[in-house]
């Protein structure tokens, strides 16, 4: 069988400053990250002919408008769009960019996520504690007090517990493993060692979700430059895109359907693995979009690393911690690293693929990076590698 050609290459990665303090707007941060990524790719802004934007789905469109093009002085773009797949958008940007460079729509596409949830009068918790319309009944969320993702994912944790008998310690094991990984990441915000006692003592936000089950939001932007698979010349090793998939199960809340688990992630993984010609067993590290401990456990199952209902024990056995069977969220993830939505797993995947993980570097032949949106209705997956061919 001939070696598969990569779909595209991620040649540039750029960060703005990441901060827990109020500061520049998302739009300003985005422009900064784009400049960094373009320079990292060994390109000039004049070489960029495609721009994809990803703002937080809880922010209005003016937060990161198409006018970012003009902030950067980009002229005559062949591709410009804001991607609205909720938390799957960052991975979707890479997918659309890969298709654009392959088809000839554009040569060099820059993809940027930016968010500034923390301002002078809004802290990190409040920023995301807004009514998200998931019940289908207009304004019902405010009326009953279903505020933000924590309550929605609390129901995921509770349903998982009701069905599969998970314990607090199972969820805690995920948080402890991510904290251990964060120790090796200079970008991570929470690095002090975390014990099960610390975890169990942390306060509940929406029981069964504790504060240490939740993502750690920051202000910041991350940009990626995507070009054709035959292109090299960046400041770092090229990262090849070998597979991609999406899954949107369209799982309505009715009957025996389980929107908490059977949500499209399995489909996204299956398509991405098949495209890359690999299986879950070939994955060296998994970088999951997991804003809560429960979503990571469900993702392990949906992406084929363990069977339904076995993810909790898989984590509790230490498999996802440093030295475990599967390297998972090696930058500390969203809980101990930083929460920049889909940019968090994607940036760590690129860093690992480049071999720039320093103390936390793991085997990097095949890296899975995922995106997850809404109440887990939207999924996108990428298979990345430093190798031009996976065969």
């Amino acid at each position, binding site marked *: 069988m001939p070696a598969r050609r990569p779909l595209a290459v991620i040649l540039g990665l750029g960060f703005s400053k990441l901060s827990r303090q109020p500061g520049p707007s998302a739009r300003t941060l985005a422009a900064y990250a784009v400049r960094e990524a373009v320079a990292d790719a060994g390109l000039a802004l004049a070489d960029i002919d495609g721009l994809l934007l990803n703002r937080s789905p809880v922010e209005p469109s003016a937060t990161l408008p198409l006018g970012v093009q003009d902030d950067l002085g980009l002229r005559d773009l062949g591709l410009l769009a804001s991607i609205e797949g909720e938390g799957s958008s960052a991975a979707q940007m890479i997918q659309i960019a890969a298709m654009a460079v392959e088809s000839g729509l554009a040569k060099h596409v820059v993809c940027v996520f930016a968010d500034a949830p923390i301002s002078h009068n809004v802290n990190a*918790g*409040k920023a995301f*504690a807004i009514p998200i319309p*998931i*019940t*289908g*009944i*207009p304004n*019902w969320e*405010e009326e*009953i*007090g*279903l*505020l*933000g993702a924590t*309550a929605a994912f*609390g*129901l995921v*944790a*509770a*349903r998982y*517990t*009701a*069905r599969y008998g998970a314990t607090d310690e199972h969820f805690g094991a995920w948080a402890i493993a991510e904290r251990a990984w964060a120790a090796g990441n200079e970008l991570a915000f929470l690095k002090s060692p975390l014990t099960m006692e610390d975890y169990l003592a942390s*306060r*509940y*936000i*929406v*029981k*069964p*979700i504790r504060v240490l089950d939740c993502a750690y939001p920051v202000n910041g932007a991350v940009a990626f430059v995507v070009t054709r698979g035959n292109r090299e010349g960046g400041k770092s090793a090229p990262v090849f895109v070998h597979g991609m998939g999406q899954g949107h199960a369209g799982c*309505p*809340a*009715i*009957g025996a359907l389980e*929107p*908490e688990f059977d949500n499209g992630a399995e489909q996204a993984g299956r398509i991405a693995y098949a495209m890359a010609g690999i299986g879950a067993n070939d994955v060296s590290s998994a970088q999951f979009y997991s804003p809560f401990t429960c979503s990571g456990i469900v993702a392990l199952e949906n992406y084929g690393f363990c069977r339904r209902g076995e993810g909790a024990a898989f984590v509790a056995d230490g498999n996802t911690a440093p030295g475990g069977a599967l390297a998972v969220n090696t930058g500390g993830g969203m809980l101990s690293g930083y929460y920049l939505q889909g940019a968090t797993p994607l940036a760590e995947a690129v860093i690992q693929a480049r071999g720039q993980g320093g103390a936390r570097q793991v085997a990097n032949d095949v890296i899975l990076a995922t995106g997850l949106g809404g109440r887990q209705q939207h999924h996108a997956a990428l298979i990345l590698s430093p190798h031009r061919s996976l065969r």
Partner: protein
Amino acid sequence: MTSQSETRVDSDPFRDGIRAGELRIQRCVSCRNAASYTARVCPSCHSADLSWSTASGRGKLRCFVEVMVSYIPEVPARYMLASVELEEGPHIIARYEAASGRDDGTVELKARFSGGTLSFVPT
């Protein structure tokens, strides 16, 4: 029974139902299938003619959470929210009142109406 397509935009049959002491769900006028609360078109026959009809108010507890933090003054903590699978099929997320504690998700519930609000309680 009122068809959504024939009523004023500001009408609110679901909350009218709560005030009248009944739980309402959406049903397709054409195929009579119950539709989820998120549906705006019948997922079975694609008719846009969904109507509100009275449900039994009975269902099964799928799972629940207890909100421990007051995010807005109008909705003070603590309170419980449950995902309930109604007898007719749709899942609803609503207030839940019961002795706190975990369970196996098989508790039978019924809707309770009090002062124009809806909550679910064990039967």
